[in-house]
Each structure stands twice: as structure tokens, then as C-alpha cells.
């Protein structure tokens, strides 16, 4: 069910990422001021945009979870936020490299977007500890969704506050894509699409893996290979551990009643 379309998605991601990298290195012109260093822009900015969109998407999925009480929405919200957190970490690292290259420091406080990103990253870094610290799976899912909605609303608010607080230092290429010359803009758009596809593919892989694992456990339990007690290894992820077992139990019971 979750694996449907995974191959096509993976294939288009490979094509898009290869195409984007080709454009970055062989098509886009060198920047007059920054030279070769400016090429990190095509990785850093799409990463940042996708990570922020992912956080907001996680909040929307959490709203869907609270409205429908369907644990699948919670799983999707978890996966999207998990992946966005990784993308945000990559954004911080690439941003830091860029800052070192252009201003000579690994960290620049006068750069509002980077500082906002750090605050957002620190906030979302508590998402998994929060889940991990709640044992009841339903309460864990609800609390995580409430957190996801609050944090999703915090993202734009935080960007406004930090941007107000610091003088503007960002290189102009970053602030406004309409200022870009044509080849650069085209490369940027292709990179953004490639990064979005990469995000979607990774999310789909994680969802598929979790789904497959819970199905495997269900089959094993039917064969009597697994004891009925929950596994001692706990996880912050939904759908494994106790939550997964409960839904599997329901499915097995349903299957028994059907014929």
C-alpha cells in the first residue's frame, strides 16, 4: 500500500538531482563577487526552503490527525518532521560553510535567516525527546500533534522577530530570486524541484519501511514466532512498539472474523 509508486518517484528523484547538479556545475555562470563558492547557494537555499515547508506541512498533517484521530496522519506528521529536521541540520551545516567562505567566520549572528534556523532547529530537536518521554501511544500522538502545530506556527513568527532584530547582511542573491540572471534562476528552480523530490522520496521510503516492518511483525505473530509481550526496545517513532502491536492485533482479529 505504501510502496506504490516508490520506484517511479525514486527514479525521477535520481534524474532531477543529477540534472540539477549538472546544471549547477556546467551551466550556471560563476558569480562575479563570490566565484565558485556561490554554487553552494543551489544546495543551501533549496534545503532551507524544503525544511521550512516540511515543518509547516508537519503542522498541517498534525491538524489532520487531531481532526480525524487517525494514527496514520500522526505517522505522516512524524516522518515529515523527522526528515525536515535532517534537512534543517544540513541547511545549518551548508550555511555555516558558506559563512566561513564569504565572511571568514563559521557562525555569523548578524545573519537573521541562519539565526532563525538555529532557533527553529533547537525547538524541533525536542520533538523526538517529547515523544520518547510519553508511554501511552495515543497520548504520545496527541501531544506530538499539539507540539507540531505550535511549532509550525512559531516558524514564521520567529523569522519575523529575528529579521527585525538584526541588520541585513545576506548576499543579495539569496534574498530575492527575481534579481537572478536567467541561467542562475533556471538552475535554482531545478535544484529546488530536485530537493523537493528528494524530500518526498525519503519520506515515502521511511513510511514504507515502517509499514513493512509492522506488517512483518503481524505475520510473525500469526505464525506464533513472536511472544505477545511488547519488545523491550522503545522508540520515539509512532506505529512501532505498543501502538503498532495494538493495530496489528485489531487487524488479526478482523481477519479472523472475515471468513
Amino acid at each position, binding site marked *: 500500500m505504501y510502496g506504490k509508486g516508490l520506484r517511479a518517484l525514486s527514479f525521477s528523484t535520481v534524474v532531477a538531482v543529477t540534472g540539477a547538479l549538472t546544471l549547477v556545475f556546467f551551466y550556471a555562470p560563476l558569480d562575479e563577487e563570490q566565484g565558485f563558492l556561490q554554487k553552494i547557494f543551489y544546495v543551501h537555499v533549496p534545503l532551507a526552503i524544503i525544511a521550512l515547508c516540511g515543518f509547516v506541512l508537519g503542522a498541517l498533517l498534525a491538524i489532520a490527525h487531531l481532526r480525524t484521530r487517525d494514527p496514520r496522519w500522526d505517522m505522516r506528521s512524524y516522518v515529515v518532521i523527522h526528515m525536515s529536521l535532517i534537512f534543517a541540520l544540513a541547511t545549518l551545516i551548508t550555511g555555516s560553510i558558506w559563512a566561513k567562505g564569504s565572511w571568514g567566520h563559521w557562525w555569523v549572528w548578524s545573519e537573521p535567516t541562519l539565526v532563525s534556523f538555529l532557533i527553529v532547529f533547537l525547538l524541533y530537536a525536542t520533538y523526538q525527546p517529547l515523544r520518547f518521554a510519553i508511554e501511552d501511544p495515543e497520548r504520545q500522538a496527541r501531544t506530538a500533534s499539539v507540539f507540531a502545530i505550535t511549532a509550525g506556527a512559531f516558524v514564521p513568527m520567529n523569522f519575523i*522577530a529575528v529579521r527585525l532584530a538584526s541588520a541585513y547582511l545576506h548576499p543579495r542573491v539569496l534574498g530575492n530570486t527575481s534579481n537572478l540572471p536567467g541561467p542562475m534562476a533556471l538552475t535554482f528552480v531545478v535544484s529546488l524541484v530536485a530537493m523537493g523530490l528528494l524530500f518526498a522520496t525519503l519520506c515515502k521510503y521511511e513510511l514504507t519501511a515502517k509499514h513493512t516492518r509492522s506488517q512483518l511483525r503481524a505475520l510473525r505473530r500469526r505464525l506464533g514466532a513472536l511472544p505477545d509481550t511488547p519488545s523491550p526496545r522503545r522508540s520515539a517513532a509512532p506505529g512501532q512498539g505498543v501502538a503498532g502491536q495494538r493495530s496489528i492485533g485489531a487487524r488479526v482479529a478482523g481477519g479472523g472474523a472475515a471468513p
Partner: protein
Amino acid sequence: MSATGQRASERGAVPAGAGRRPAVSMRTAVAALLRKELLVELRTLESVPGMSLFALSTFVVFHFALNRNTVDGDLAAGILWVTLLFAALLGVNRLFVADAEDGGFEGFLLAPVERGALLLAKELALLIYLVVLELVAVPAFVLLLAPPFAHALPDLLLVLALGDIGVAVVGTLVAALAVRTRARDLLGPLLGLPLMVPIVIGGARASSPLFAATHAGSPAARWLATLALYDLIFGLIAYAVFDFLLED
């Protein structure tokens, strides 16, 4: 106080007898819950004295850590806001503990009132704690570290009020998120600090001209607007999501 309680029970009894659904009005419920909060705090003295003492100790720590007898401008505003924020987090950590441990949530859920009443009452209680904290901490700050700034007091009160509302709103939400986790003492501050960064930005930037050595300037309108916007947005969000934290 007893008159309020009596009136509350009367109002609660009449519609219930008439068989209507909303048994107790929102305002009555909030008043009763707030009264309960304040009574518990008055009898146990668990939060406010600790918060105030913590703020005093932090000023002493700042004095030695910075090796300064007086501070002004940015530094003074920063010390005041960091101290108030950390002291507030102490109160945030304690805010729902009694309800979680002694069955307060279950009792509240049995009552025929809107869930939002608990949120509002807790926010108001935290706000009152913060005001009492500042009644101690701000004079102590002036006494120990800050330059005299009596002329700027009205402006400072405005900034503090806007910041307090934000801390109360976000703090209550964070406390409700963290209280039924295994590591609530750790998670409360971890969740709260990043969420309150905009309050620190707005509060510290708005109050730094008030502490300036030259006694010039008033808080810039954009920082007050940022604080007010933050209060409004998080007030609405907290009200929208709080119900889901109480379900069982």
C-alpha cells in the same frame, strides 16, 4: 471569597436543575479555578517565593560573573530579561504538577465546564505569579545592578506587561505539553526556551533604551508591536490546541 464560591455554586445549580447543557458559565469556571490556584499557592507557597529567590540569586551571580557593579543599556535589559525568563520557567515547571499527580485533571474533566477554562485560569495564575515576581525582582535589580530609571518606569511596565502575557501564554501551553511526560523537568525548559526567544528579543530590545546611561529614548514601537503580535498569535493557538492535551 466565600461569597464568590457561593454564587458560583448557585449559578452552577440552577441550569443543571433546568436540564440545560452548559451548566456553568465560562467566567464562573475560570474564577473558581483561578481562586483554587491562588489558594493552593498561598497555602503551599511552592512557586512564587522560589521564583523570587531564584531571581535575586541570579542577580548576584551576574554581578560576580560579569564583575560589574552597575550595568546599563543592552546589558541591563539582557540581564533583567534572562533572569525573569529563567525564574518564570521554574513556575512553568510546577504549574500543572499538582493536577497531574493528585487527580486534578480527572476532577476537572468530570465538571460540566469548557476545557478552555482551565487554560485561561492557569494563564491568569501564571501571569499573577510573574507580576509578584517582578514586584520583587525589578526593585532588587535597581538596588543591586541597574542605574536609577524612575522616569522610565511607565514604559518599562508596559514592556514587562506585554512580555509577561507572552510568557504566561506560552508557559502554560509548554507546561501542559510537558507535565505528563517522564522527563517533565527537563522537557519544560527545553521546549520553552526556543519558543520564548521572540519574547526575549522584543522585551530586551524594547527595554534597553530605558536603561541607557544617557537616559534617552523610549521603547521602539516595532518591538512593542512584535510582543503584542506574539501574545495574540500564541494566545489563539494555545486556546485552539489545549483541549487535545486533556483528553484521555
